[in-house]
């Protein structure tokens, strides 16, 4: 692993807003009416870099930039006997600055779905290759954060190309390269780089290591569920309060379900992959009316079994990175930590397995 370095904050800011923005689409977190969202860097006011790296986690995970809510597949034009169809899948050279380690880890998990199986989604893979992830170590985690419990370290550069450590008291901005792509990107900016002595590097790590994350301790280290949990009574009980909205899935960095939806305006049309949610009642409803998951019980069970059991069986991983968004935002508190806690009690009571 390469050493920790420092660069001049203003110099980096100028480069990113200038030359880098000409070569890449640069996305950074901004605060819009209290909601942190990623926006394309166009005409930033000076000081934006410092603001961006000091923001808390975004409402929508950074990794959703690679799987946008409406993602064109193809365009068509003409009538039924003379359609002209063109490929509309696009990928651009992308820089995402301000990625939290949880969201970066989520991309590693999504790689297993989109890039690691026999049917590779080339569009995703291409985007992934063309994206430079600039992470930011978590200076001030939210009370709802529990990434440590899910095996993510809030300062680790492992899942990013470059990592920023926005720690106070250093001369300049501390950075670490963690991939060849990151190295090349950094070199392309021709910044004045100062290498930090090993002990400062250790101090930085110690600083981040010491930042408490109380919820992680509460969550512990969950293990995967077995298929036996499918029949537990808990699903009927906890799902009673679900609103059947798609908030949890749309905010979840590891949720990726989509629908393929056509839209035509006159003779022209667009087919796109659009986010969809297993919490919506019609998610699995078929044209004939049959719905294998007709009530909230089956749908809530699907969400948690998918994350805790099915993905583990298929990809060897629990699909949760502990970002805490569902904990913070679910309108009825039907979130990962609460469900996990209730599952543990139920399994302990019933002499069940795991977790």
């Amino acid at each position: 692993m390469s050493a920790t370095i420092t660069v001049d904050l203003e110099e980096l800011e100028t480069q990113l807003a200038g030359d880098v923005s000409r070569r890449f689409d640069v996305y950074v977190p901004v605060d819009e009416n209290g909601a942190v969202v990623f926006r394309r860097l166009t005409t930033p006011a000076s000081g934006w870099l410092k603001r961006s790296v000091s923001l808390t986690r975004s409402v929508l995970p950074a990794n959703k930039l690679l799987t946008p809510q409406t993602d064109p597949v193809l365009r068509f034009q003409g009538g039924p006997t003379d359609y002209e169809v063109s490929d509309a899948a696009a990928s651009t050279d992308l820089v995402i600055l301000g990625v939290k380690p949880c969201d970066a880890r989520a991309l590693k998990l999504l790689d297993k779905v989109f890039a690691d199986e026999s049917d590779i989604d080339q569009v995703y893979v291409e985007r992934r290759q063309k994206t430079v992830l600039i992470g930011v170590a978590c200076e001030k985690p939210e009370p709802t954060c529990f990434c440590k419990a899910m095996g993510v370290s809030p300062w680790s550069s492992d899942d990013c190309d470059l990592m920023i450590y926005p720690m106070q008291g250093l001369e300049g901005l501390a950075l670490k390269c963690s991939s060849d792509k990151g190295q090349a990107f950094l070199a392309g900016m021709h910044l004045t780089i100062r290498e930090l002595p090993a002990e400062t590097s250790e101090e930085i790590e110690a600083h981040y290591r010491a930042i408490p994350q109380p919820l992680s301790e509460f969550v512990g280290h969950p293990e995967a569920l077995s298929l036996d949990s499918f029949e537990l009574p808990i699903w009927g009980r906890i799902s009673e309060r679900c609103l059947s909205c798609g908030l949890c899935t749309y905010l979840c960095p590891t949720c990726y379900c989509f629908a393929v939806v056509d839209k035509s305006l006159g003779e022209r049309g667009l087919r796109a992959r659009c986010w969809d949610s297993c919490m919506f009642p019609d998610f699995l409803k078929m044209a004939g009316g049959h719905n294998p998951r007709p009530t909230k019980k089956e749908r809530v069970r699907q969400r948690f079994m998918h994350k805790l059991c099915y993905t583990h069986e298929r990809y060897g991983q629990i699909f949760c990175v502990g970002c805490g968004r569902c904990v913070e935002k679910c309108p009825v508190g039907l979130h990962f930590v609460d469900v996990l806690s209730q599952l543990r009690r139920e399994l302990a009571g019933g002499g069940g397995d795991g977790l």
Partner: protein
Amino acid sequence: MSETGKNPLLPSVHTIREVRDETDVGDVKTFVVDGSFDYLPGQCAMVSVFGVGECMISITSSPDASARGRYLEFAVKKVGLVTEALHELEPGCKIGIRGPYGNHFPFEQWAGKKLLFIGGGIGLAPLRSLINHCIAHKEEYRYGPIEIVYGARSPGDLCFKDEIMGHWPKCEDTTVHLTVDRGDENWKGHVGFVPQFVEEIAPSPSDCVAITCGPPIMIKLVLETLRKLGFEDDQVITTLELKMQCGIGKCGRCNVGSKYVCKDGPVFSLAQLKQLPAEF
């Protein structure tokens, strides 16, 4: 534009060559489209009407016939938006097709066995691909006698009449048993539901593979009948149908437990199905 040109959801555009009405009421049509690709019986393709959407349809032509005639056949029942739009189309119209998707019927594993096909209504569509393939390769795979049990609501609802009443009964060592839920003045054949009919025919389970496809309630009762007749779970093959969007195991729609119907299915043995959560 995708530089690699490997957009997995991009269909190729095919022209409809012929449209055949399968049933008297006109709710099932077979579409013959120009062009083909390599596939095996049981596999599906994503068929799309531009501006309306896509749906997963099993390929009903046999791979042998497709390869010879450079065409694909899809038998489509009108049930939803996309299939309704498809039914509006005529020869010369263009549709999108991508595939093939999913696994196939494990016909290579049935050497020396008797084959029992049990179909209901439009459920004969995927079986038809397989039946024609098995008949064509009967000697190669040393299959035993072939029995086909097929039923529909009424005589007018029976699909693929040329084959069930013409071609198949004439094939060597092949028997076709037809039944309808309700007969009419011209119907001389059996009247009754498919599962009961199977019970009456009472095929012997020894050295036999049963392959069934039809409406969910029929499949459920047929499985029950086969169990009573002494068929083991691994002797029974069926297909699952779930809403699908991508066909490549990415969209997260058609999972049953950790399996994706579009990729790991649609063909499952009863033994495999029993390993999955009952949510289909």
